[in-house]
């Protein structure tokens, strides 16, 4: 759905995006994670057709986005700082959206009204920041987009609303195969809703993976071996810590296969442990190096 290759964007000599590549498959919920200043919003503004890159390629559904109404009409974008015509009411905006977006679904707008519980006649400037965000979601979901691009979407939403908005969005993903790209500086926040994650740092993509692939390829085990036994050879050990006779290993490979191989060494004790997504990324990105920890946590 989205293909970005070697994107470069500089602002007055500062390379905000530095040879960045990214691929989002159709129907995926892609989480873009990175610390402040990593370039997430800059990338997203390219996707929304607001910025034009210095070099590189950016395609949505095989077409460039910049000045391309056909692509943009099937895309909903919610920026981190919402701006609307301050005099306009939600209903005025609905009329505007209905004109701009051919896919706009009024029945859907009415149905979602029950979820958001905002009066359509209320003018945007009278709404709180969180309510403005709700209104943005309301309008965005009503245009039945094929692609939803969200920049730090839960900022300002209370937990109940956050859950309802995601529920609605994910039900759309299940039903219509909507593609979602969502940015956050917090991996934890995206873990439950995403199936793909890309980690950005200083304008580059450090790592892009599908979650199932990640979860299936690293294993954490605790084990105690008898005095005279050694670990089987050629295990791919990413990390090892020893406390007394208890060893904790992070291994690359499939859980069942590795447990079977370790069991062959007749351990006195063998216990596979679950790995959190944060741990997985830390080890995938090359060990418990401090910089990596700072990026993720």
């Amino acid at each position, binding site marked *: 759905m989205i293909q970005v290759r070697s994107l470069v964007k500089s602002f007055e000599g500062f390379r905000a995006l530095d040879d960045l590549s990214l691929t989002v498959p159709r129907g995926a919920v892609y989480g873009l994670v990175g610390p402040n200043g990593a370039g997430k919003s800059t990338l997203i503004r390219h996707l929304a057709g607001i910025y034009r890159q210095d070099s590189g390629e950016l395609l949505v559904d095989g077409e460039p986005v910049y000045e391309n109404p056909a692509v943009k009409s099937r895309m909903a974008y919610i920026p981190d700082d919402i701006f609307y015509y301050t005099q306009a009411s939600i209903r005025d905006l609905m009329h505007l959206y209905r004109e701009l977006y051919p896919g706009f679904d009024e029945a859907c707008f009415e149905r979602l009204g029950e979820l958001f519980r905002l009066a359509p006649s209320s003018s945007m400037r009278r709404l709180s920041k969180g309510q403005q965000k709700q209104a943005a979601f309301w309008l965005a979901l009503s245009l039945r987009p094929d692609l939803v691009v969200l920049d730090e979407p839960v900022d300002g939403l209370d937990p109940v609303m956050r859950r309802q908005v995601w529920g609605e969005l994910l039900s759309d*993903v299940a039903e219509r195969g909507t593609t979602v790209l969502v940015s956050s500086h917090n991996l934890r926040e995206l873990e439950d809703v995403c199936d793909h994650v890309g980690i950005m740092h200083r304008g580059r993509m450090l790592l892009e993976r599908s979650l199932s692939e990640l979860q299936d390829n690293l294993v954490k085990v605790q084990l105690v071996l008898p005095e005279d036994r050694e670990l089987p050879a050629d295990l791919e050990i990413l990390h090892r810590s020893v406390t007394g006779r208890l060893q904790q290993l992070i291994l690359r490979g499939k859980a069942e296969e590795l447990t079977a191989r370790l069991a062959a060494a007749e351990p006195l004790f063998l216990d596979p442990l679950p790995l959190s997504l944060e741990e997985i990324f830390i080890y995938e990105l090359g060990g418990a190096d401090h910089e990596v920890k700072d990026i993720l946590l």
Partner: protein
Amino acid sequence: MRPLIAINFRDARPIYEQVRDGFRQLILSGVLPADTRMPSVRELASSLAINPNTIQRAYRELETEGYICSVPGKGSFVRERGEAAAARRAELLEKLAALGRELALLGVGEEEMLAALRGGDRT
């Protein structure tokens, strides 16, 4: 509808495992008897606010393990407990054996283990 299972975000298990284990338990304990229709992926994604692919993955595993079967165009249904229960029994017995070995290393005798299994007090 209130979802039957709950996701605990403090749980270190991946979410698909929590979904899978949650339903496994509901089926084995008979809360979801044979031929019950499983909630659709869309319903669960919406009520739990988790990714539909995650749910699909949990359902796929439940299907391979014989807990549910999918009927194209109709959804997924709970199967008779026979096979799945047998597989789960073998798995749990293996875990019990592993626990037993560990306890034996700690010097816990068979009598004591049996007493613990029966839930009787050991005084």
